[in-house]
């Protein structure tokens, strides 16, 4: 994936890379303990689906290239 997933990133037409998003936790000072991580991963996966839908919608509307 080429998504920078950084605060100043420019996004990625392929969508949200869940692994890259999780890797931001340390930099933000968030501790993903064993109890927390599965729930966060599941929610990121859901957000990735919604982001994919947004990118597709923007592409179809001509707002953003594929």
């Amino acid at each position, binding site marked *: 994936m080429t998504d920078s997933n950084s605060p100043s990133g420019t996004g990625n037409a392929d969508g*949200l890379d869940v692994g890259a998003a999780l890797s931001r936790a340390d930099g933000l000072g968030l501790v993903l*303990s064993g109890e927390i991580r599965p729930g*966060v991963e599941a929610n990121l996966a859901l957000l990735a689906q919604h982001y994919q839908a947004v990118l597709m919608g923007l592409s179809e509307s001509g*707002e953003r290239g594929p």
Partner: protein
Amino acid sequence: MTPFARSASELSTAIQSGKVRAVEAVEESLARIARSNEAINAFTRVFADQALADARRIDEDVNAGRVLGPLAGVPFAVKDLFDVKDQITTAGSKILAAAPPARTDAVAVARLRAAGAILVGTLNMDEFAYGFVTQNRHFGTTFNPHDTTRFSGGSSGGSAASVAAGMVPLTLGSDTNGSVRVPASLCGVFGLRPTHDAVPVTGTFPFIDRLDTVGPFARTVSDLRTAFAVLSGTPLAAPSRPVWRAARLGGWYRDGADPDGLAGVDAAATALGAEEIVNLPLAALGRSAGFLITAFEGGRRHLANLRARPMDFDPATRDRLIAGALLPDALLRDAERAAALCIAQLEAALDRHDLLLAPATPSPAPRLSDGMLQMNGKAVPARANLGLYAQPVSLAGVPVLTVPLARPGKLPFGLQLIAARGREALLFDAADALVAAGAAGFSWPPLAEVSA
């Protein structure tokens, strides 16, 4: 007639004419809370002594012949994200349990009090208003008064359930993505999401600034009219019967909805002359955009506490907020562009139609035991899907009134009446027309034990 068989407006009229004492009304409210709250778990705090003292003052004013406000003597309660002077605003979270008490009332609370209403307590909610179920690790689940094995909806679940159970005739909730409309639908009460910025949110714990609204719940349209006038500081909109151009929303707003609920929506549409079906193909895009914007901004709002005390959050809230905090900025810009497209499409439809009709939820209240609802013959998680029809509308900041459809012997199911910004009066008129036609109206749940 006991005080609580009356609407808020009727009750205030009776109090101001001396037929009922405000103390009687508050005592009735406190007795109903004492009887029903164990089963419903709507209230998180009850201010019995203060409410009775306020009621005595109202009775003294009545006896002295003073002119009182339109809600004089009416007991009310607020979602626990409204500041109440000298009380801690918890926003449904243990995180804020040691916060300093509020120095003043939230503007909405102050306006209701200035109109003579009497605050009797605070109400349960999803933690930090992030949810549609009012299942709260710290304060418990709020149960549906029509069937306590089912969801009350959220995040203003306590606000809807307490009105449905007859504990109070008027409450305040907040609606960011559907948190007034979803519980109003599941509990069978009227609930208003006002135009964004029509009612000040000052003194409420925020969620997503660009989407946050505060609005009232009641058992009658008349009470919502009165409450909205007080809350917005605008003149009371007298009932009228304008000619409107109305249509039903199709596509996204019908796909998967409970067939019996849709039949009620169609009956209401017929009553309002809304035969045309309008499709908004970008509604799904709006849902996704709203979902992402909420996660992104919610995560950043709570980042400091997510770092410092993650285990003090309700796990369901925490995991969503952390996921949102991990999203890149670029995603927000894409979501905002998508939201703008969805908003433009809805606004164009509201240029052509005065009223748009849609279900408020995909189904009546789902069972708590499995947490699922049925859509297109498939079981899907209620938590993630109860807001499907409410969320896309939220982006545009337009007013939406949820109306309980007439469903004798069945669980409640709500209809969204949607209009352009600033047209709350039209929504009240349309809701009145539905009640007059027998297509909508509040029904007491068996638990309420109301005697006329």
